[in-house]
């Protein structure tokens, strides 16, 4: 299928882009999600505003230990270390597991978050990292925690004409540790289950994430000994909590997600030992 007709502009600056978009246009960057939707005519916006090259969306810097990544930074740039990393390797590792290299060359961090597919890697990785989303729009700028930015399957807090411009991570300490595990039928596919864990004693942060659940990611309330669990005991303990939080989930769903989280925790622990 071919896309329905649309107007296309590529403004040079953020202010121009916001003005050009008005309230009806869609922003487009890497086009790895929107492109297929346009071609399938699942989306028929009257106009596209290309923000792929906006300087305001292409930056990457560390300020006060906090990493700021522009929304149009590509998966490949994160994978390749072309932008700074304050997560002890988590961001490049997650990037490396996204789809295929051809997708990573074009797809962007912000595009992935704004598309809000529950099985997408950045949706889950940024949630477990406790990222904040910087939004610009016709009524000015605002900042939301990613867990509020994401509202559900393909739903975000972005209003008409609003654009995600930057993602900001907490100032992780040297003692920050992470684990991320994806269950997928094959390499490059969207995950059927994602488990992720981040622990930073300096920030008093212990995040246990259950992702790819057809809703925004689930952060399990931390519990004593969670990071020490291993093997079948870990799957059982996490499974019980997942089943309680997601009562509609069947046994396979719970087991895959519990396994993903157990393996993420195991990786976090292995990293700490290394």
């Amino acid at each position, binding site marked *: 299928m*071919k896309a329905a007709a649309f107007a296309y502009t590529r403004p040079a600056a953020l202010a121009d882009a916001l003005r050009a978009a008005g309230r009806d246009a869609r922003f487009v960057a890497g086009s790895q999600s929107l492109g297929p939707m346009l071609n*399938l005519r699942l989306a028929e916006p009257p106009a596209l505003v290309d923000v792929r090259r906006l300087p305001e969306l292409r930056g990457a810097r560390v300020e006060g230990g906090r990493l700021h990544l522009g929304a149009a930074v590509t998966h490949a740039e994160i994978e390749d270390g072309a932008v700074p990393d304050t997560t002890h390797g988590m961001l490049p590792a997650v990037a490396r597991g996204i789809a295929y290299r051809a997708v990573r060359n074009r797809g962007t961090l912000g595009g992935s978050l704004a598309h809000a597919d529950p099985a997408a890697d950045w949706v889950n990785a940024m949630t477990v990292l406790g990222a904040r989303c910087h939004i610009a729009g016709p009524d000015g700028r605002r900042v939301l925690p990613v867990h509020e930015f994401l509202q559900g399957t393909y739903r975000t807090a972005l209003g008409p004409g609003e654009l995600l411009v930057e993602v900001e991570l907490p100032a992780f300490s040297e003692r920050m540790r992470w684990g991320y595990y994806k*269950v997928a*039928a*094959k390499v*490059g596919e969207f995950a059927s289950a994602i488990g992720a864990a981040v622990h930073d004693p300096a920030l008093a942060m212990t995040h246990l994430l259950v992702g790819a659940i057809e809703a925004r990611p689930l952060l399990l309330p931390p519990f004593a000994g969670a990071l020490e669990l291993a093997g079948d005991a870990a799957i059982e303990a996490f499974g019980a909590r997942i089943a309680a939080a997601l009562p509609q989930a069947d*046994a396979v769903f719970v*087991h895959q997600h519990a*396994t993903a989280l157990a393996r993420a925790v195991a990786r976090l622990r292995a990293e700490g030992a290394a």
Partner: protein
Amino acid sequence: MSENRTGIGARVLRKEDERLLNGRGRFIDDLAFPRLLEAAFWRSPVAHGRIARLDVPADLAGSVFAWRDMAGVRPITARSTLPGYQVSDYAALADGVVRFVGEPVAVAVAPTRAEAEDRVARLAPSIDELPPLADVRSALASRTPLHPGWKDNLFIELKRDDDFAALEGRVAHVVRREFRMNRQSMSPMEGKAVLALWDDQRNQLVVYSSTQVPHMIRSGLAECLGLPLAQLRVIAPDVGGGFGYKCNLMPEEVAIAWLALKLKRPVRWVEDRREHLVAGTNCREHQYRMAAHVDARGRLLGLEAEVWVDSGAYSVWPFTACLETGQIIGNLPGPYKMECYRCTVQGVATNKPPFSPYRGVARPGVAFAMEMMMDAIARTVGRDPTAVRFENLVTAADMPYTNIARKAFDTGDYPSSLTRVMEMLDHAGFAQRQAEARKEGRYLGIGFATYTEQAAHGTSVFASWGLPIVPGYDGATVKLTADGTLEVKVGVHSHGQGMETSLAQIASELTTLPLEAINVIHGDTGETPFSTGTYASRSIVMAGGAVSKACEVLMGRARTLAAALGKCDAAALRLEGGAFRGAGVTVSLKDIGEAWFHRPERLPAAVPDGGLEVTEHYKPAVDTGVFSFASHGAVVEVDIDTGNVRLVDYVIAEDCGTLVNPMIVDGQTIGGAVQGIGTALFEEMPYDAAAQPLASTYADYLLPGASEMPHIRIAHSETPSPHTRHGIKGVGEGGAIAPPAAILNAVNRALAEFGVEFNETPLTPRRLLAAVLAARRARAAAPLKEAA
């Protein structure tokens, strides 16, 4: 065999890859014509319904068409002479009733595809829904036939019913199982594509089609359009894969050809991936209920089977719904001996896209059922699955051997291929490796499958399936040119098989010319002699045989001219290095070509006037097919917490008779195996209870990818066929036949301790994990029983 290094058996790179790998292939989407219109179809959103209204906005008159506009065009009607077969009329655009989601109802044309889709988007036909036949069960239960004049929902039922009385007292076990191979899409890299235009100069309708069978498409189009064959030319340019998908006449092909006649402008339609997944023909969906009667050692005495094929809404032309069913009843016994055989196969009409042959044609299904059954028998009698196979396989000493289904096996040592894959996987040491892995919490399994690949089966076989077009002789034209290079023209089509190389190798073998002096031309009914085309692993045998025969005749004529030019005795000359040598003279093929075409004064007046262009036709003396064979072996590791299966090792020992190009055989074998791995683990075209397709993009329909592939190791043996020129057998389909069985057998071995057994493809992580979790729960609930 001659000493030249580009003949039969040479490992040479594929000639066609030079253009294909450098992006210079010419596919239908690459063609450009002035005033070209692009077409898009309005397709039924419901599985079954009556078209109540189909209004065309006034401004679209002349650019949107429906069946009512196509007066005089006949529906695609795939007839069969088999008794009881019920015929379906498949109109190019739905004739009042739609019978599957995706069925073309109207077509729009515009200068670009996007604009054509805009026009389609403005159509809103109203369709009164009818109850859908979503699967075999509901179709068999329904009292309302899908097609007018039918008595039930069976295209065809085939039956074989031996008396089992002779087995009395010898049967130790009756092993019963049900198997299911789910529905698939075929996914060639290039979808279907058609471009048609009227050529005033030639007074012909020229139809470019992405097809495997240009000559047959020509016949089918002529029938539907009522055009004389002489006014129809079909050209298949580069075709990006076929696998069986492109061996049928498709309704879109008829519609586009008709539009070109109607509009007097070139019209093109290129199938997109969504159309392919939703509306394209499907394949593979078989269900089996089987009972194997065996003795205490697992020797197969008799086999009973009931088989159902979900044949979809229409019978495809020319292969019909009879091909798959016929292949099932004929190939289910496989390479095994048995005394009696009882089998019923039903081709059932449902509200799904039509079913068409796909690489392996029914044999992946029957081999899956039979090879899973072999392992089930082994478990029942307590022997190793390989031992049970050796107990039952037809052996080299038995050859030639006519099996229970009257398949005439020509040559081969079937057990040796199994021995070979066992060695390649170190079968003897596997139990120890498995036990060591188990200590680390890893679950390893090993599995095997053995099969025969009937190839190049001809007239008698296809006639027995009652098809509207039955293959007979295949033609080849060879022409020695004035500069001593050779043109080879064949009616088959090469779209991944490497035949521009392998057929040139056969010509090289016969003429001693180097490959670069030989040009193979195919895919144009205006230029090539008739062949029914490329399918059924037939082309290297049929076209290869025709090329060989034509070259032999041509070289006979060249020899006569060489003797005339050299003024010597023809019998004294030997053909070597592109020249006739001996008796103190050397006359090259170039000398001969030049003399014949440009300098006839060099020839004596009395020289034979047959010329240097030869067309010959060929079919093997025995036309029931030649039998390639192979065994596959797989080692898998199963992740019992995610349900994923990793292929640790995969080996194939195959024999396709004389190898024309071992690298091409490897490529065909690996390509087939990858598709078989797709069947085993990934590919499924699911439908809901309303017969709505649930996979319309590759996000939902999973194909195997490079990351999932093990390094496939292949061993060859060469047992020539006595029936064919050069002893060649076919090999295009074989790789796809065995992987589902080899892999699922391996998984079942890996998970034996859980008591689970998988008999359905694809074995998805979800299916696997559901069964393992249920088994673990049951074990946890009954620990005492396990201890006992």
